C-alpha cells in the first residue's frame, strides 16, 4: 500500500512524459487527479494507522534489493514520518491546483512534479539508508529542473548553485551512511536495524566523525547557519510552486534526517555534540530572523524566516540530546514540537510562497516597497496575507504556536540557555508586521494600483494550507497523538 502511495505519482509521470499526444489541459487535470488520489490514499493510511510501538513500523514492506551490501527495499512509517507523508501529499495537491491555468509546458511540468512527489514521499517512507539516499538525491535533481526550467530572473545560476551545494551535502551524507554501514555489527543499511543496534558505542571519535558527515549533509539541506546561502537565491528565482515544494518538503528532509537518522543511530555522538547543535540552533534562529528583517525582497524575506523557523527545530533536537535526569518530559515535548514545526512550517510557508507567487503573477516583482495599500484593491489577498503572516509569527490559534510553544517550553526546560533564542519570535513578529504595513496598508500606491484580487483557484490553493494550520492550532491532539509516542521513542533512543 505504501509503495502504491509512493510510486503512483511517478507512474503517472512516465505516462505523461511518454505520451506526447496528451493535451496541456488534460495533463493539468491528470496531474491534479493523481495528486488527489494519492492524498486520498494517505488519508486512508492516516485513518488506518495505529501506533506500531517503539522500534516498529506501520504499513511495513521489505523485499531484498542489493543483498551483497545488506540493503533492502524497506518502506514503513511511524509517528515521525506519517505527518510528513501527509504534508507531502497535501502540498503537491495544492501545487497542482495553483497552476491549473498555467500555460508554460504544463505536460512536462506535471511530469516533473509527479516525479518530485514520488522522490519526496520516498524519502519519508524509506527505511533503508541507500533507498533514502536515492530518493534524497532524486529530489535534488527534480528541484534543479524545476528551478532551471520554470524559474525566473537568474534561474539557471540559482538552480546550479542549489544543485551543487545540496549535492555536496548529499555526498557528505553518503560518506556518513557508509560509515554507519561499516560500523554496524550486521553490516547493514537498514534504518530500523541501525537504530536498534547503533554502531560506534565505544568509539566516540569515529562516531563523532560519522555524525559530522551526517550533520553537515543534513544541515546543508535544512539549511542551518552557515550553510543557508543557497536558499535565498533558489527561492527568489524558483517558480511559486517550486518554492512551495522546496520550503515545505525539501527542507524537511534535512530536519527529518536529524530525528530519523542522526539521533537514533548515533546516540552517543549526538549526546556528546548536543551542545554544539543547540548553539547552531540558537544562531540560526536569531541570525535568520535578523537577516530577514533587513530584506527588501518579499521572497528573500520568507526564505530567511525559513532559516529562523528551521533553527527552532535544530534547537529542539539539540536540546533533546542534552540528557539530564529530571527533564525527560521536557525533552519529549521539545522533539514533539520539532516535528510539529516541520508540518507547521510546511503549511504556513507554503501558503506564504503562494502569496508571493501571486505578486509575481500580477506584477512580476517581489520588492516590498514597490507595493503599498494593497488592502484597498485586493481585500481578499490582504486578508489571506495577514492570516498567513500571523500564523508564521507563531500566533496562538495557528500550528506555529503549538510547535514553538512546545519547542521553547521543552528546550528551556532542558537547556536554560535556549531562552537566548526567544527574541527570535519577537523579531519575526516585527518583520511580518512591518511587511504587512508596507505592502497592505496606507494609501494605495506603486504596483498596488489595479492589483487584481485573488481568484477562486488561488483561494482554493492557499486556503487548505491555512485551514490545516488553524485546525492544528486549535485542536492539535489528532496530530500530537501520532507524534508523541514516536518522539518519546526517540528520546529513549538518544538517552541509551
Amino acid at each position, binding site marked *: 500500500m505504501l509503495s502504491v502511495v509512493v510510486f503512483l505519482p511517478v507512474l503517472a509521470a512516465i505516462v505523461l512524459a511518454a505520451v506526447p499526444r496528451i493535451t496541456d489541459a488534460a495533463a493539468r487535470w491528470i496531474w491534479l487527479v493523481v495528486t488527489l488520489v494519492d492524498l486520498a490514499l494517505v488519508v486512508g493510511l492516516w485513518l488506518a494507522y495505529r501506533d506500531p510501538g517503539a522500534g516498529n513500523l506501520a504499513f511495513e514492506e521489505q523485499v531484498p534489493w542489493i543483498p551483497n551490501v545488506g540493503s533492502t527495499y524497506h518502506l514503513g512509517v511511524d509517528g515521525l514520518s506519517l505527518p510528513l507523508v501527509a504534508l507531502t501529499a497535501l502540498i503537491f495537491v495544492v501545487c497542482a491546483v495553483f497552476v491549473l491555468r498555467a500555460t508554460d509546458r504544463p505536460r512536462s511540468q506535471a511530469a516533473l512534479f509527479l516525479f518530485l512527489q514520488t522522490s519526496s514521499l520516498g524519502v519519508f517512507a524509506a527505511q533503508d539508508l541507500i533507498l533514502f539516499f536515492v530518493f534524497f538525491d532524486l529530489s535534488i535533481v527534480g528541484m534543479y529542473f524545476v528551478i532551471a526550467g520554470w524559474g525566473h530572473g537568474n534561474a539557471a545560476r540559482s538552480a546550479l548553485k542549489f544543485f551543487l551545494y545540496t549535492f555536496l551535502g548529499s555526498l557528505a551524507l553518503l560518506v556518513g551512511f557508509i560509515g554507519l554501514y561499516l560500523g554496524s555489527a550486521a553490516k547493514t543499511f537498514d534504518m530500523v536495524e541501525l537504530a536498534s543496534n547503533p554502531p560506534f558505542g565505544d568509539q566516540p571519535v569515529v562516531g563523532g566523525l560519522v555524525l559530522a558527515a551526517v550533520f553537515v549533509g543534513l544541515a546543508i539541506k535544512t539549511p542551518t547557519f552557515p550553510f543557508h546561502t543557497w536558499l535565498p537565491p533558489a527561492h527568489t528565482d524558483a517558480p511559486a510552486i517550486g518554492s512551495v515544494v522546496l520550503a515545505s518538503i525539501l527542507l524537511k528532509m534535512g530536519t527529518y534526517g536529524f530525528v530519523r537518522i542522526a539521533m537514533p543511530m548515533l546516540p552517543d555522538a549526538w549526546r556528546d555534540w548536543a551542545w554544539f547543535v543547540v548553539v547552531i540552533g540558537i544562531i540560526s534562529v536569531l541570525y535568520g530572523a535578523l537577516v530577514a528583517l533587513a530584506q527588501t525582497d518579499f521572497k528573500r524575506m520568507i526564505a530567511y524566516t525559513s532559516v529562523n523557523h528551521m533553527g527552532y527545530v535544530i534547537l529542539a533536537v539539540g536540546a533533546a540530546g542534552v540528557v539530564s535526569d*529530571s527533564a525527560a*518530559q521536557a525533552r519529549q515535548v521539545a522533539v514533539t514540537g520539532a516535528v510539529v514545526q516541520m508540518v507547521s512550517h510546511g503549511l504556513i510557508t507554503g501558503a506564504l510562497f503562494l502569496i508571493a507567487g501571486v505578486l509575481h503573477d500580477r506584477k512580476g516583482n517581489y520588492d516590498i516597497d514597490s507595493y503599498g495599500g494593497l488592502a484597498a484593491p485586493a481585500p481578499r489577498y490582504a486578508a489571506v496575507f495577514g492570516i498567513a503572516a500571523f500564523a508564521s509569527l507563531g500566533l496562538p490559534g495557528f500550528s506555529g504556536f503549538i510547535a514553538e510553544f512546545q519547542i*521553547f*517550553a521543552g528546550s528551556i526546560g532542558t537547556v536554560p540557555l535556549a531562552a537566548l533564542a526567544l527574541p527570535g519570535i519577537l523579531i519575526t513578529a516585527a518583520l511580518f*508586521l512591518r511587511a504587512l*504595513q508596507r505592502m497592505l496598508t496606507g494609501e494605495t500606491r506603486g504596483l498596488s494600483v489595479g492589483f487584481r484580487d485573488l481568484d477562486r483557484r488561488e483561494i482554493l490553493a492557499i486556503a487548505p494550507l491555512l485551514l490545516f494550520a488553524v485546525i492544528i492550532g486549535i485542536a492539535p491532539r489528532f496530530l500530537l497523538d501520532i507524534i508523541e509516542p514516536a518522539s518519546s521513542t526517540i528520546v529513549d533512543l538518544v538517552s541509551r
Partner: protein
Amino acid sequence: MSVLALALVVLLPAASGVSLCLAGPRARAAAIPVSLTTATATAALAVVVAVTRPALEIPFIAGAPLGLGVDGLSALVLPVVAIVTLLVLMFAAVEGTESPERFHGLMLIFAAAVAVTVTATTLPALLFAWEIMGAMSWALIGFQWRDDRRVQAGLVAFTMTRAGDLGLYLAAGAALVGGTGLTLADLPAASSPWRDVIAAGIIAAALGKAAQLPFSSWLSRAMEGPSTVSALLHSAAMVAMGGYLLLRVAPLLEVTGWAGTTVAWIGALTALLLGAVAVAQRDLKQLLAASTAAQLGFVVLAAGVGSIAGGAGYLVAHASTKALLFLVAGAWLAALGTKQLSALRGAARRWPLVGVLFTVGALSLAGIAPLSLWALKDELLAVALQTSPALYMVGLTAAALSAIYSGKALFIVWGRADDATEAGYDDEQPGTRHIGRWERIPLVVLATGAALLGILALPPVSEPLKATLGEAGTATPSVIELAGSAVLALAMLALVAIGLRRGVPQPAWAVNWLGLEKAVHVVIVRPTLVLSEALARFDDNILDRGLHRTARAGIFVGSRAARADERGVDGAVEGLARQLRGLGTLARRPQTGKIHQYYAQITIALAAVFALILLVR
C-alpha cells in the same frame, strides 16, 4: 450544563467574531445584530458561570491541558468585563464605524480571548489567549488602515507587549523543569531557582500588557485607535489583564520573597510617574491613557502586597470608570472633531447629561468620596502600609496626582467655550456636532458602576470577598485613612481649581511620557535594525561571497591541477618514459648479435652469481 455555559462564554463570541470577519462586507447588515446578540448572551452566560463556578479541561499538549475554570477572582472580573464589552459594543453600534463587520468581529474575538485569559487555569491556556488579545489590539488600533500612523501604532503596541510575552514562554519552560507542570495554581510549588524564573517571566508579561514601567509608552501610541477600542482594550480589558494576571499569581509572587516587593514598587512608581505624565497631557485621550497606566499601577501594587480583594475591586471599578471616560472622549471626538483639551473647553456644558456622566467618572477617578475608586484605593493602600510606609506614601502621592489630572480635565470641560476653543474644532476629523440619544444609555450604566462599585470595599461585602479570594490577615483601612484620602482628593481638586488659571505645570519629560518611546527606540529598535542590516551585508558579502570564493578557488585549484597534470604528472610520465627508453637503449646495447660477446656476457653474469652465492653463504 454549567461547563457548557463556560465553553459558550468563549466559543460564542469567538465563532461570531470569526464568522463576521470571514464573511466580510457581505455580513455588513448582520454585523450589529449579531454582535449585540452575542455580547448580550455572553454577558448573561458570564453571570451564570460566576454563580455556578464550573471548570473544564481540554487535552492540549503533553502534560499541559487547556484548563478553564471560574474561581472567586474570575467570578468577580468575568461578568464585569463581559458587561463592559456589551456596553462598549452598544455604543460603537450607535456611533457607527466603517466596516462594522470587521470592527465587531475583531471586538468579539477579543472578548473571547479575554474570557479565556480571565478563566485560564493553565499556562498554555493563558498564553494562547494572551497573544490573541495582542493580535486583536494590533488589528483594532490600526483599524483605519489607510492611515500609516495608526498601523504603525499597532505594530508598536504588538511588539512591545510581545516582548513581555516572551516571559510566559520562559515561564512555561521553567515550569516544565521545575517539576510542577503548567497549572497556574501549582506554580508556587516549583523548585527553587525555577520558581523565581517562572515569577520573573510572568511579571514581564503582565507588566508589558498593563503598560507599567518600562513598557508604558505603547499605550500612548495605542490612542491612535478608535475611542471604543481604547475604552475596551486599553482600559477595561486588555491592559487590565496585566494587573489581573498578577493578582492571579499573587501566591507565587509572595512565595519567592523578592517578586512581591518588586511588583509592588513597580506598580507604585508607575502610579506616581504616569500620574505626573497624565497631569501634563494636553490631549484628553493621552491624559486618560497615562491615567490608565497609573491606575493599573495601583492594581499591580495591590497584587505585590497581597491585597487581592482590594486589587480586584479596584480593577473592576476602574474598568467601569475608565470605559465611561473613554467613551465620552470618543463621543466628543466624533461631535467636535478634536480631543485636544484646549478645544474641549465647554464640551460638558454643550451636552449636559454627557457632561454629568463624565463628571461622575472623573470624580471617581479623582478618589472623591463616596464614589467607587476612593474606598477601594484606601483598601489596597492599607495593605501597602502594612508592608512598607514608604510604599504607602508613594501610593498616596500618586492618589493625589489622580485627583489633580481628573480635576484638570473636569474644570476644562466645564469651562466656558470661547472663539479660541472653536478654532480648535475638527483638527482630527470633521465633527458631527451631535451626540446621539442611544449613545447615552451605555454611558449611564457605566457611570452607575463608576459610582457604586465602591460597595466592594464596604466591610459587609469586602469580608466575604476576601474569604472567597483566599486573602486572610490583611489590614483594612481605618476611618482616619478613609477620611484623610477623601480630604486629600478634595484639597487637590481645590488646588487645581485655583491653579488652573495659571496653568498646570507641564514639564517636557512628563508631556512626552518620560521619553520612554525614544529610549526604546535608541536602546532596542535602532541597534536591532543596525545589527540586522549589518548581518544582511555579512550574509551577502562574506558568507555567500566566501562560498563563491571557495568555489572559484576550487576551480582555480582544478585548473592548476590540470596544468600540473599536463606539465607535472604528464611530464613526469613522459620523463619516465624517456628514462625507460634510455634504459631500453642501454639494454639493447649488449644485444649485439655476436655469439662470442653473448658467451662473454653469460660468463660474467655466472661469475657474478657465483660470487654472490659465495658471499651470502
